[in-house]
């Protein structure tokens, strides 16, 4: 038994729902109690989907237990197929139905539905949402592509590929596939099938016709891609084109498989990211400490972009995707941080506080933590909330994706010159303790133009600049003037300054921290 308050992933049947909702002409009959219908609102509210997800729930009740839950399942299944007329039906159980062992797959087979039935076995007490999505997609691919052969192609015909992995409720999937398809058009590669998003079961039967696969979201489609590789000898492009370097690598891999020239596409005019990052005003980004947490794919990609393309310093890297923990461990090693493989949000919050980052890149959960701690943040991974489905085009992949990343990670930060001003004129009333960078004015108190005392309303309970509280006895204490000097350091680096100074004092056996100690420590830790 595990105590959980917020979770990063739902149960595996929610993963199956995400695949079902991504596709067309497919229906999912889920043996589940009425409360499980909450999952509909993930799609209709968070993603603003315009139709109900294609899911029928049996909504059995206590009084049905031991009597006719199997019959209820059969009725629901039969009626759903009559009403929605899908090409195929997925059947399965939620956590409660798993315990009553009605065997939805077996029951559906007895119904003679006249369409393919794909039974799902998703162990609710062991596995989670992404695993459920991956397993569902794999079962569908196997079920529909299995036993087929590729249609013969004319000699010298253009090469084609499948794009695998985008789903409902995935982070920016809607726009990523547009961006990736743009690259493929420029390269002269045809797209055979995109799945699961937008595909029908009939489309899945055509998967073998592609020359190779592109795996955009390993958490969802790795299992299926591996099977296709084995079954149809379709090679797989595994580089996820997030960031400039990865986009270049992706283009080269695709070009190699398709036998085309990558260079014209690599030199794309669309890449503004590279110049923006090289331009002098970005100098102040150098060494900014960034904490990264998300699904494995997005977290690893973010770490690479942060360090190698923006010049940040990764100060924390973690994931909830245990299935892909190896990739995150390898990346963490490369950037010299401890990998954080956990889905305990309290542990992650503690890690953020300890790492003292200047920017947090995470899921909606880390956004809330960062908001409370008053650290700038951007969302890079599911789980996400309604505002992470922006109305405007905002991919993460390809050149435009990199441009979007530049904007959304850099804008929350204190701007370069603004940072200098804050340091130089730290006694200015606008730069006092409660003043924020102008664009963060909504959080806590804001600089008051009228010169009135700044009121810090709605201050969060936990503020990162107060780690002094957990100082143990015997650690150095602060002289009053040193404490005053510390207050003059802008809030977003003050916590670090306090920590460094205390560590420096402890190392040197100083009991009292004076103004001198503060500046000695500054020199000691200068980067």
């Amino acid at each position, binding site marked *: 038994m*595990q105590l959980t308050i917020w979770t990063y992933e*739902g149960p595996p049947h929610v993963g199956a729902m995400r695949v079902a909702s991504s596709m067309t002409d497919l229906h999912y009959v889920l043996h589940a*109690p*009425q409360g499980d219908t909450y999952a509909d609102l993930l799609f*209709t509210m968070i993603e603003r989907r315009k139709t109900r997800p294609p899911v029928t729930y049996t*909504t059995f009740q206590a009084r049905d237990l031991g009597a006719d839950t199997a019959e209820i399942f059969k009725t629901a299944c039969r009626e759903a197929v009559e009403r929605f007329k899908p090409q195929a039906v997925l059947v399965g159980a939620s956590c409660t139905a798993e*315990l009553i062992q009605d065997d939805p797959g077996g029951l559906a087979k007895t119904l003679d539905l006249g369409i393919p039935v794909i039974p799902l076995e998703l162990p609710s007490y062991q596995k989670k949402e992404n695993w459920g999505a991956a397993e569902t997609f794999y079962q569908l691919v196997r079920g529909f592509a299995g036993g087929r052969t590729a249609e013969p192609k004319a000699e010298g015909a253009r090469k084609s590929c499948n794009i695998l992995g985008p789903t409902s409720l995935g982070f920016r999937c809607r726009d990523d596939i547009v961006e990736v398809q743009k690259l493929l058009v420029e390269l002269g590669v045809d797209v055979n099938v995109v799945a699961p998003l937008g595909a029908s079961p009939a489309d899945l039967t055509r998967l073998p016709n592609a020359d190779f696969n592109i795996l955009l979201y390993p958490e969802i489609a790795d299992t299926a891609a591996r099977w296709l590789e084995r079954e149809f000898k379709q090679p797989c492009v595994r580089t996820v084109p997030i960031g400039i370097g990865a986009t270049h690598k992706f283009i080269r891999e695709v070009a190699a498989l398709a036998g085309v020239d990558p260079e014209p596409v690599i030199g794309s005019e669309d890449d503004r990211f590279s110049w923006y990052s090289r331009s002098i005003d970005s100098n102040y980004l150098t060494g900014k400490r960034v904490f990264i947490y998300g699904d494995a794919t997005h977290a690893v990609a973010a770490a690479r972009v942060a360090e190698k393309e923006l010049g940040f310093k990764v100060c924390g890297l973690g994931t909830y995707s245990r299935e892909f923990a190896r990739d995150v461990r390898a990346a963490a090693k490369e950037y010299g941080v401890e990998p954080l493989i956990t889905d305990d949000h*309290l542990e992650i919050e503690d890690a953020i506080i300890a790492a003292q980052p200047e920017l947090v890149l995470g899921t909606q959960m880390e956004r809330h933590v960062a908001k409370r701690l008053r650290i700038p943040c951007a969302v890079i991974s599911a789980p996400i909330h309604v505002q992470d489905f922006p109305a405007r085009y905002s991919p993460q992949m390809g050149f435009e994706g990199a441009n979007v990343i530049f904007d959304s990670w850099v804008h929350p930060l204190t701007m370069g010159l603004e940072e200098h001003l804050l340091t130089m004129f730290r006694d200015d009333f606008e730069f006092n303790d409660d003043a924020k960078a102008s664009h963060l004015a909504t959080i806590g108190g804001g600089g008051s133009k009228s010169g009135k005392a700044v009121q810090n309303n709605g201050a969060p309970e936990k503020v990162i600049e107060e780690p002094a509280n957990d100082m143990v006895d015997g650690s150095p204490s602060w002289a009053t003037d040193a404490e005053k000097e510390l207050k003059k350091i802008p809030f977003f680096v003050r916590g670090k300054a306090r920590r460094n100074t205390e560590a420096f004092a402890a190392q040197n056996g100083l009991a009292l921290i004076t103004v001198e100690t503060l500046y000695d420590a500054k020199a000691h830790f200068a980067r």
Partner: protein
Amino acid sequence: MSAPDIKSAACGSSVAAPIRERGQHEVFCGLTSIIWLHRKMQDAFFLIVGSRTCAHLMQSAAGVMIFAEPRFGTAIIEERDLAGMADMNDELDQVVERLLSRRPDIKMLVLVGSCPSEVIKLDLDRAAQRLNKVHAPDRRVLSYSGSGIETTFTQGEDNFLTALVRDMPEKSETAPASLLVVGSMADIAEDQFTRIFSSLGLENVAFLPARRSTELASIGPDTKYILTQPYLGATVTELERKGATRIEAPMPLGEEGTTLWLRAIADTFDVQQDKFDAITGPGRERAKKALTHYREQLEGRRVFLFPDSQLEPAIARFLHREMGAEIVEIGTPFLHRKITQPEFDLLPDSVAVSEGQDVDKQIERCRAENPDLIVCGMGLGNPFEAEGRSTKWSIELVFSPIHGYDQAGDLAELFARPLGRRAVLEVAV
């Protein structure tokens, strides 16, 4: 001015035979009540013993995650518990131990049963007894079921209050007659009623749930109770078993509902009519004035209510009587006749009522009726809007202050807003 006389009202009858439906229900389970209960009772922690699905439901339905550590959580049953590799009771005790040591502010721990815990017959009543031996009296442990196989949405609160009533101390023989107001309300509405009660001269008034677990009222034959929420059938049974007597009235929603509700209380405690009129007069006037702002937008509008919180009959009565709306169908997950009768007494005989649900059929009926406003849950709202229809999320009815005179206008506004918005927007779907 006097309270409207029910019998002279234009309409009024018993519930017309409802459509009974047995198909897919599209409602939350009782766990969802915790979202407001944990805010209402400030020293209680609700520990769901369930699955990852239960935890995911709570965070999806709560929607906002601004509380770093809310006063609810889920002890997720895992494979090793089911396989018998771990003793579930030991595991639960450990979870509770860790939780209580981290949260010294918790004075009442509530174990909430879920579908999985019930299907595997994990006895949470026994667990609560066992834990009480360790933690009472400093911290009390209660249990109830919020499972989806036993309860819909607001029935979770019903079961919680039932558990609280079971725990209420017995009133001494000599204690004076008292009033118990039963059902979660916004604190602001509760405070307003408190002021009215004291002006009316009622001294012994308590609310259930109380804001703190330590403030549980005592109960006995001289306790008169009145409901503020219609979904409290099990609580009613338990209160009556303990000897309390019910004051019958419609729910205190809208000007008329609030007046009838207060009048029923005043009559029970022998408050003179002129005093009643003097005390309630200003509130009634304010409510009426607020309601006139919205009446124009709602008058003659056809409203279809999907089943959600069991508040549907009371809401329909308000919309019909005070806003002049026409009610197309009142869907309700469960029709508690005894409690809802005062609402139906004020509604036309012809109003269609459905109990239970077959959501696909109900959607078809709704489309065929083409109402002006659909009151429904979050899973259905956007799909209806995408068809060009106007909807109101029913969940707001349990999440916002709607009771009493000074919230009557707010209640009307909830329904007027989508219509007003529709009229303003020049963009189409």
